[in-house]
């Protein structure tokens, strides 16, 4: 199968799907190595730079998206697109969970210095955070972010979260102190 054929086939498939498609699924259907699919997806994404749409992999699957530049025009069509904005408290709590997951509510409280009960409830109800088993020693419920969280942030996977380290000053012993706080 030539490059052009792979490109066109991927475009055609992504045009009819109702949910994101993984690189592996595309490779299986087209009977080509995954590398070839990845190359093709990159080539296609580049070729759409001046178009009104783009390709994105979010939560492990690829699909077409409207280009961010064109959001004013698209917003007129999408009626239920207005998502409620998260409060500052919700965002901070979400940040702690995202980087420390799986994590108990008490731990999040300790890091933020306030009771996070109500905020956690909101995040769970919004589908951004979910329960994830219990901590062995304490029996406290652990929480982690959901795939919907990735979707809302436009992330391919949790690995795409920017590292936390640059936000912390490079102080001797800080890591140890922070570590000791987790007990």
């Amino acid at each position, binding site marked *: 199968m030539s490059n052009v054929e792979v490109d066109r086939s991927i475009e055609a498939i*992504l*045009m*009819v799907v*109702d949910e994101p498609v993984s690189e592996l699924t595309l490779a299986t259907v087209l009977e080509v190595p995954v590398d070839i699919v990845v190359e093709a997806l990159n080539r296609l994404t580049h070729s759409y730079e001046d178009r009104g749409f*783009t390709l*994105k992999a979010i939560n492990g699957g690829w*699909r*077409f*998206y*409207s*280009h*961010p530049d064109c*959001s004013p025009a*698209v917003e007129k069509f999408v009626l239920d*697109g207005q*998502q409620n904005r*998260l409060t*500052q408290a919700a*965002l*901070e709590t*979400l*940040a*702690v969970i*995202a*980087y420390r997951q799986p994590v*108990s*509510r*008490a731990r999040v*409280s*300790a*890091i*933020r*210095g*306030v*009771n996070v*009960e109500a905020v*956690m*409830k909101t995040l*769970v*109800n919004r589908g951004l955070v979910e*329960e994830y088993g219990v901590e062995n020693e304490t029996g*406290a*419920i652990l929480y982690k972010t959901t795939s919907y969280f990735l*979707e*809302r*942030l*436009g*992330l391919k996977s949790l690995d795409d979260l*920017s590292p*936390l380290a640059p*936000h*912390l*000053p490079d*102080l001797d*012993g*800080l890591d140890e*102190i*922070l570590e*000791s*706080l987790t007990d």
Partner: protein
Amino acid sequence: MDISLETAEQVAPESGFNVHLSNFDGPFDLLLQLISRHKLDITEVSLSLVTDEFISYIRSLELSGEGWRLDQATEFLVVAATLLDLKAARLLPSGEIDDEEDLALLEARDILFARLLQYRAFKEIAASFQEMIDFADKSFPRVVALDPALAALLPEVLIGVGAERFAAIAERVLTPKTPPIVAIEHLHNPLVSVTEQSRLVVEALRQAKSMSFRSLCVGAESTLVVVARFLALLDLYRQGNLRFNQVIALGELQISWTGAESGDIEITDEFDIPVVLVDETDEDKNV
């Protein structure tokens, strides 16, 4: 004191001391705000200034009539107590660290700063989350139903589960994901009971007749224990069981026992959250 009054007014000139709790989210948030307002490096905070302001915020909250929730009060108290400790240490002549208490103080400072730094890091991350969400919101996914011609090609759909499993899925999805109602995690663990500390304090004072607050707090495992012992003292003072004596401002606080030599002392439980016991839950059902 004048200085702290002025600075507090600068924060909310339109309402004087009338600070509302919604302005900031917890003690760390307030502390960070105060620190950033003075454009100080978080590790070189002018502690006295920030401490004074922090305390005046707490005072103004008291005066505002909004009242305190116990969990909020303890959180602010812990931070206030740590700050006061640090301020006191600054005011004392600096000497060699030869005292275990001084070491503990340094440790308390490090921990407070470490926690603040950690909080600040997550605050910055939260801001980047908002940016990412805003950007993601500008892009809309293609959401289309399968072309009817293509849908006709599809083999019979496989639900993949039986009726029992299907019901289990429904139950899981339909159950409101509400965390347990009786929550005690908001008092940072380990929980410290004022009632329990009160008994220790009474016992120690009956034995020694008179002792300093500092020596009363030797062996306290955490700042929270110190706070609990202090609260216990206040309550015992209210009942006329002891006398405070402080010769100079910020000097050593001496406590003398004036209460009964033996027998039961009424011990307060107003600071402690009642723990719901298993056999008490019957009563709750009536609610």
